[in-house]
């Protein structure tokens, strides 16, 4: 699939995403739920993350998922759309949403993995509908945010911050 150049998430859609993530965490009893872009960037999270470094976690989870898709290709599989990582204390389920996003559920041993799988799939369907709307509205929303003045000010900030 051709990659998008930008993805713009509006306030309304972020609220929809947060609602889906929050309900999934609540219904499964998961510690927390995260929505990542497949490039590793964090879109939203819900639940008790504590002091976890979600930026690093996002980069690693997206990397692991992306790596698993290469493994699938070598095995002649079309895709691995879901990965389950099991630890002593905590487990992680990652599901691909519409080739663009990654839904990550972090849960402990109190939560049944089967329940997480079923409800994560349902939440994934809802998130896919959000993603479709976000895709369609991306261009217009981008023009409202990024203009000539924005680019010029960003360039000045880059010059002043990243110096030898």
């Amino acid at each position: 699939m051709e990659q998008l150049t930008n993805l713009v998430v509006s306030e309304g859609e972020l609220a929809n995403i947060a609602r889906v993530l929050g309900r999934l965490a609540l219904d499964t009893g998961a510690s927390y739920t995260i929505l990542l872009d497949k490039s590793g960037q964090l879109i939203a999270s819900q639940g008790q993350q504590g002091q976890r470094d979600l930026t690093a976690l996002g980069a690693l989870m997206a990397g692991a998922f992306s790596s698993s898709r290469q493994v699938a290709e070598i095995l002649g599989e079309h895709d691995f759309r879901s990965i389950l990582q099991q630890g002593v204390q905590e487990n992680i389920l990652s599901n691909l949403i519409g080739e663009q996003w990654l839904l990550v559920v972090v849960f402990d041993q109190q939560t049944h993995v089967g329940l997480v799988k079923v409800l994560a799939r349902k939440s994934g369907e809802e998130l896919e509908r959000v993603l479709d709307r976000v895709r369609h509205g991306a261009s217009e929303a981008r023009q409202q945010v990024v203009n000539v003045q924005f680019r010029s000010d960003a360039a000045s900030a880059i010059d002043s911050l990243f110096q030898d």
Partner: protein
Amino acid sequence: MALINVAKREIQCKIVYYGTGFCGKTTNLQYIHSHAPRPARGDLLSIATESERTLFFDFLPLDLGQVHGFRVRFALYTVPGQVLYERTRVAVLNGVDGIVFVADSSPEKLEENFQNLLELEMNMRRMGRDLGSFPFIMQWNKRDLPGAVPIPTLDRYLNRRRAPAFAASALTGEGVFPTLRAICKAVMGSL
């Protein structure tokens, strides 16, 4: 793929440092990490083998601060350079917004640089992207080496797209920030 989060007033972009094994990609990130001002830089995360070679990627988040009310963040990644890790490089390229190709200036690395660049072009094509119309910067690294290939030669063989190019010595930091500034601006320009 840049992510513009209007609700959180955040813009996030992904930049990948690509190149052959031992060309200095990780050294670039280490220099940026140790010299960028503190509020702007996050923790440098490395997945390396016991011999300190990059196994999967290095990751360094940078925070440009507020621009027009939006917090602009860059996520810098490196790929593992060894030939063996081609599939891993494809995985790291996923969703990339800008690429720095770090070329090793040693004469014996010229062919390897060339092959690595062809591989990058092919991987980008598979993702539906053309390097010619993509934020792309060349870095001629290891200029401090005795016998380094002259820049016009590197330019002729490795830079037929005439991408902006910077001479560098990542170990001493020369050229590291000019390269970073150029790729960040190119990415912002393409948003």
